[in-house]
């Protein structure tokens, strides 16, 4: 499975005590150099260096065609007040995910909203960290024996990153994990 990492995801995920599960879940992670330019914290720089060294993370070769696609997308989604800042690096990541048939790892609410209505990008899978944790359970990368185990890992993430997931998303994830545990 191929993943694309954007800035918002990376800076939070790099603080997670179980961050190594990401490199086990994805064969390849793609990143744009403009995302790299955004990171400054020790945790994020250290994590990115580690992923490059392990050969999991690769720089995406941005092309002129990709750039044209960015200009079009930018004009199509530019002015809705309910879509938080869609900055260039995050839109680039959406285009990379679309063109690479990859999962986009993003905590950018704006990106999650664009894929809810944009006809071209609506089939792009965009995961938040909660989805990564859930998928890691299904792949056996995180062992859980109960819903409580799953929830405690979600709480670990929230504690490590000061990131909160919406209650309805956590409830839905717990229900799916419960069904999976009963199989």
């Amino acid at each position, binding site marked *: 499975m191929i993943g694309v990492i954007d*800035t*918002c995801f990376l*800076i*939070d995920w790099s603080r997670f005590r179980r961050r190594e599960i990401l490199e086990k879940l994805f064969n390849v992670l793609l990143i744009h150099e403009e995302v790299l*330019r*955004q*990171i*400054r*914290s020790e945790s*994020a720089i250290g994590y990115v260096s580690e992923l490059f060294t392990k050969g999991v993370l690769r720089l995406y070769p941005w092309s002129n065609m990709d750039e044209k696609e960015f*200009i*079009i997308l930018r*004009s*199509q*989604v*530019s*002015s*809705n007040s*309910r*879509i*938080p*800042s869609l*900055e260039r690096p995050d839109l680039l990541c959406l285009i990379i995910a679309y063109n690479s048939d990859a999962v986009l790892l993003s*905590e950018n*609410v704006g990106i*999650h*909203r664009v894929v*809810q*209505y*944009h*006809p071209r990008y609506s089939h792009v899978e965009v995961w*938040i*960290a*909660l989805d990564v944790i859930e998928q890691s359970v299904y792949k056996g990368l995180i062992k859980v024996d109960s819903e409580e185990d799953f929830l405690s890992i979600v709480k670990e993430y*929230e504690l490590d*990153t*000061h*990131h*909160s*997931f*919406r209650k309805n*998303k956590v409830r839905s994830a717990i229900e799916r994990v419960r069904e999976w545990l009963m199989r």
Partner: protein
Amino acid sequence: MVNEIRPPKELIKKWEEEDEEARKTRKSMANWNFINKQPPRIKLALIVYIETGDIYKAARIAELTVDEFNEIRIKANIPSIT
């Protein structure tokens, strides 16, 4: 000429409700003692973040990168919410 693609009204309504809920959570969890002690530009950026949840906008106001602003957000105990 590229036409803008607009989200449907029902989605916009749903997003408004989500945004308001998130804004209340950020506001109630924030460490206001920490925020009030910050230099004016950082304080303003933190307040904008609480109100909008928009880390890019807040980082620009603070004249920092997103990652640098995120460090301050954490110190101010303001959750990012998705």
